[in-house]
């Protein structure tokens, strides 16, 4: 997979172009949906007053939060994937590898299957707690042990992931059919739940996690060669890696709790971005985030328009588009 040339031009120009692309995508994607609005009315709503009050509701209460959530989810998943791949030096690393989705799934299952009057906490909160639980197990297992090796981190994540998924399947198998269905659909991923309340959680978490990762970008770069070499540069490798894992976990968990399982974004996007933006952490993280955000915004457009009057789970589409596109890219690399 080694491409011998790295495409170079001014990184700022490229990031600038990406930002323009993101803005265009956000605006254009608002025009798609069950109700036909047309770009003129969308544009009018953004720049001025809407023609009809119903447009106001459709655009600002339904579509805008959804499009923004799509962008943030794509941004967070792709950036977390980029961060994970860099700190583990493993091109297959993905936030989903660390049991985050499995944990969120278990949390969602537990909360979704409880009788109505016992549901003290909402599904997103339960999913978030589940995800944090999974990551804590991974970190604890590693802390107790001599965890100087990156592979241990990945293996522990995979093991915890399978364990929690097994619990989830067990509960769903014996669960009441209707509630089980609800949870299963949630796990396939959807942006339909997006509203201003969920955004008020997602926005601060994604922004603060991205800033934290960028603050340590140079230190994180040191890990790219080897742990030992990073230590000779004055880096506390174990602490830095746990820190990066927690940042990824928080960012992914908040997305998974509101949007369910959206696979492949974290794995695929950094691979696509790397030849164009290089692989140092700051550049890779930002560009992966922006590309991932754009990608998910358009995937969601497909999800809500491809079958008239019905929505396809977004996780299904990311996996299909993602894997085919990925195989195609790999052939050309």
């Amino acid at each position, binding site marked *: 997979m*080694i491409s011998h040339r790295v495409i170079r031009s001014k990184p700022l120009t490229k990031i600038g172009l990406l930002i323009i692309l993101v803005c265009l995508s956000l605006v254009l994607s608002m025009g798609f949906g069950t109700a036909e609005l047309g770009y003129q009315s969308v544009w009018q709503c953004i720049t001025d007053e809407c023609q009809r009050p119903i447009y106001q509701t459709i655009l600002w209460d339904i579509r805008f939060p959804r499009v923004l959530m799509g962008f943030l989810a794509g941004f967070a998943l792709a950036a977390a994937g980029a961060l994970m791949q860099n700190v583990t030096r493993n091109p297959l690393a993905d936030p989903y590898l660390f049991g985050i989705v499995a944990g969120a799934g278990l949390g969602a299952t537990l909360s979704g299957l409880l009788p109505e009057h016992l549901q003290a906490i909402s599904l997103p909160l339960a999913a978030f707690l589940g995800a944090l639980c999974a990551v804590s197990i991974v970190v604890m297992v590693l802390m107790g042990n001599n965890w100087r090796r990156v592979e241990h981190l990945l293996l522990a994540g995979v093991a915890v992931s399978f364990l929690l998924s097994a619990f989830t399947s067990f509960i769903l198998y014996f669960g009441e059919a209707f509630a089980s269905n609800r949870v299963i659909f949630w796990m396939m991923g959807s942006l339909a739940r997006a509203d201003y309340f969920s955004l008020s959680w997602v926005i601060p978490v994604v922004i603060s996690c991205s800033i934290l990762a960028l603050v340590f970008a140079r230190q994180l770069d040191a890990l790219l060669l080897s742990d030992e070499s990073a230590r000779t540069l004055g880096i506390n490798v174990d602490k830095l890696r746990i820190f990066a894992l927690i940042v990824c976990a928080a960012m992914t968990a908040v997305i998974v709790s509101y949007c369910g399982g959206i696979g492949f974004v974290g794995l695929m996007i950094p691979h696509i971005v790397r030849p164009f933006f290089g692989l140092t952490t700051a550049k890779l993280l930002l560009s992966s985030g922006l590309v991932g955000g754009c990608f998910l915004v358009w995937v969601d457009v497909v999800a809500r328009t491809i079958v008239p009057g019905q929505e396809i789970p977004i996780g299904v589409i990311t996996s299909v588009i993602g894997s085919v596109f990925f195989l195609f890219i790999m052939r050309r690399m």
Partner: protein
Amino acid sequence: MTIIHLQAENVSWHINNKVIINDVSFAALKGETVGIVGPNGAGKTSLLKCLYQENQLTSGKVYLSEMPLNLFDRKEIAKKIAVVGQQHEAAFNLTVFDIVQMGLIPHKAFFESNTSTDKKLIDKALSEVDLLTHKYQVFNTLSGGEQQRCLIARAIVQRPEILIMDEPTNHLDIFYQHQILSIVKKLGLTLIMTIHDLNLAAQYCDHLLLLSEGEVRAFDETNKVLNEEIIKDIFHIDCLVDKNPLSNTIRVTYAGANND
């Protein structure tokens, strides 16, 4: 004036109850080159790792400018000691520039980006090791000698006082062996390196530490360490030690392996 720059005092390192390094003491003076020689498995690389704290000492102490090394924090040490290890592969498509840039890390605060001085420093380091034309080449596609020079450039950017190198001439042809060693000698740093080739050691090192089974067998000026008896004793090979007429340093000529 001779100043002791890096000193190991009764350093021992055990792992799983096995003694790897046993009671090693030596000192490197400011600006000189100390070579660590010895057969395979003697503990040369382990000893180096004890010096830069990659191995946690079982007992003994390492002093940097006569101060115990463990009193410095990681970043301070990284500003004084640079390490060129044996690295032949990098993850992803790490470029020469990416790697050389890492040398700035100990000198940078969070969020601080590269200044024009840093960029000049990187270019200067690259031209010192003659890799400027390979600045954006992928590390994994470089030859062994180029990879070694790239890591040396990183060490130059790190601006250390002491350079520790593990087998810098490994896998290199005769031209590159001399090229690498003369590049690092020119830097004028205190240099501590493990080295296999006794003739190279004789040519480039001021002091030699002869290590065998984790213990010091000799530590002295190079021409006092290398003699026929000790080489036969430690490497089990007959040899002739005389003077290299071209470089005026010690020359070791080997007979075949002694299999008796």
